[in-house]
């Protein structure tokens, strides 16, 4: 069964990639514009650090490392899961969801697999550069297990962001336009780009236990930076799994509600 979904996803991905490469100009603009936008954050931190030496005990490259991790997680989420945003406006409103529902495979799978967002590559490039450079400047070298752990953290971070997206995108079943809610929740990510220590406790709390974006950036970063929160970092994959269990429940509820009210 899993095998079927994996091979199916690869097929979908192949088709999506083919289409992506057809629209070359859009691809170039999309990737470079997201890259540039994310770069603004680095730019910001850089200019600040031309004027001061540390923030809350964190140095420039320590902060950019956190920033880079979230950028990578965000990039994966954007590339693979962007279609969740379209649930309400496109699939429910136009009835395309019904087509998904008469096929013998999961509608959620079809929603996610039908579309990729190449702009995410811009985030992946920038994130990759920033993370690598930060680790180098911080003189942190990683052995193989640590590299694997870093990859696990990044993937978990992406999973966390995607799960949160999924939970809020189900509002699209009812409202047929989840844009407002999604962009509002996504803007909480802004906080997670920087070490959450600089915020008052209640914001840290929200970002840790309620909308856990901090587990996509701050906590996994601290495994390598050792600023006192390392023990939290190992929770990252667990949080990702728990969030996905919740998200799938919410989705199932949304779908059955859609099925009984006909939207």
């Amino acid at each position: 069964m899993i095998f079927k979904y994996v091979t199916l996803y690869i097929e979908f991905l192949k088709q999506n990639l083919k289409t992506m490469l057809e629209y070359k100009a859009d691809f170039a603009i999309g990737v470079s514009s997201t890259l540039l936008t994310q770069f603004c954050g680095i730019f910001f931190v850089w200019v600040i650090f031309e004027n001061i030496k540390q923030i809350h005990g964190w140095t420039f490259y320590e902060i950019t490392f956190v920033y880079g991790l979230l950028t990578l997680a965000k990039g994966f989420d954007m590339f693979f899961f962007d279609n969740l945003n379209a649930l309400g406006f496109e699939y429910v409103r136009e009835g395309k969801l019904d087509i998904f529902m008469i096929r013998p495979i999961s509608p959620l799978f079809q929603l996610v697999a039908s579309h990729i967002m190449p702009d995410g590559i811009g985030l992946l490039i920038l994130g990759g550069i920033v993370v690598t450079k930060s680790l180098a400047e911080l003189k942190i070298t990683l052995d193989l297990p640590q590299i694997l752990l870093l990859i696990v953290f990044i993937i978990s971070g992406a999973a966390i962001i995607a799960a949160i997206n999924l939970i809020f995108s189900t509002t699209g079943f009812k409202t047929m336009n989840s844009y407002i809610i999604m962009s509002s929740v996504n803007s909480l990510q802004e906080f997670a780009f920087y070490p959450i220590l600089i915020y008052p406790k209640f914001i840290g709390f929200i970002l840790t236990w309620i909308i856990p974006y901090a587990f996509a950036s701050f906590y996994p970063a601290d495994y390598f930076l050792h600023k006192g929160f390392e023990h939290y970092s190992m929770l990252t994959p667990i949080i990702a799994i728990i969030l996905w269990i919740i998200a799938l429940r919410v989705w199932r509820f949304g779908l059955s509600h859609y099925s009984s009210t006909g939207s």
Partner: protein
Amino acid sequence: MLGKILEIIKINIKVNLAYAINAWGAFFVTLLQIFVFYYIWMAIYKFDSVINGISKDQIITYIILSRIIYTQVTSGFIPRIGRKIHTGEITMDLLKPMDFQLFMLFGRIGDFVSFFAMTAFPILIICLFTLGMQAPLNFATSIYFLLSLFMAIILSFFVEFWIGLLTFYTNYSWGLQTFQEALVSMFSGVLIPLSFFPGWLRTITNLLPFQQMSYSPVSIYLGIVKGSQVYEVLGFQLLWIVILFVLSRLFYSFAIKKITVQGG
């Protein structure tokens, strides 16, 4: 003529009201970003009460004003022009008895009015009571600020307009919008007061129009520029408006030729 202009502004306000839900989005996101940067800046100012000639109190007002202006200046105007070009709607607009660019400009002003009422004003109230804000130095300053702000909006229109015309060559107007947002982000001062920039970066910034969109009005408001400097700043804004107007006009007539030859 004036009647026509008022009509256009009114219609745009009505359209904006219909999309009130977008206003809520802008409100919430902008407010959130103000708070994010508030905390970051408070952390930056933890040990110093003045950095680069800007005090802690000033920076709070700076963030609030800059962020609100930024939201308005990057309000998705480019995809709107893009959509007009791609759906062919623009050919209808060109038939109207008013210059298209002027038509769009007044629409923009209508946008600004609704933005102010539905988004900027509530944000200002909230920030006033939660974060505290500084008042302008004196009455004259507030007048110059408003003048500068008005010019900033006009200026940003021209920038968006000609970037919008670029959608000719590409489908992806949202990509162009993002580009513009990024450039404005870096060089308008919304992220950091430009006085923080190292010298060489400042020089580059001075060659670009973006600081006129936000930094100019805000620096007048906060008294970062005083006295005769204010006139300099206003003068530069005017100069940039003229330059951008000419540029966009050139681009515009070139684009019109293309549209009318290609048939949309």
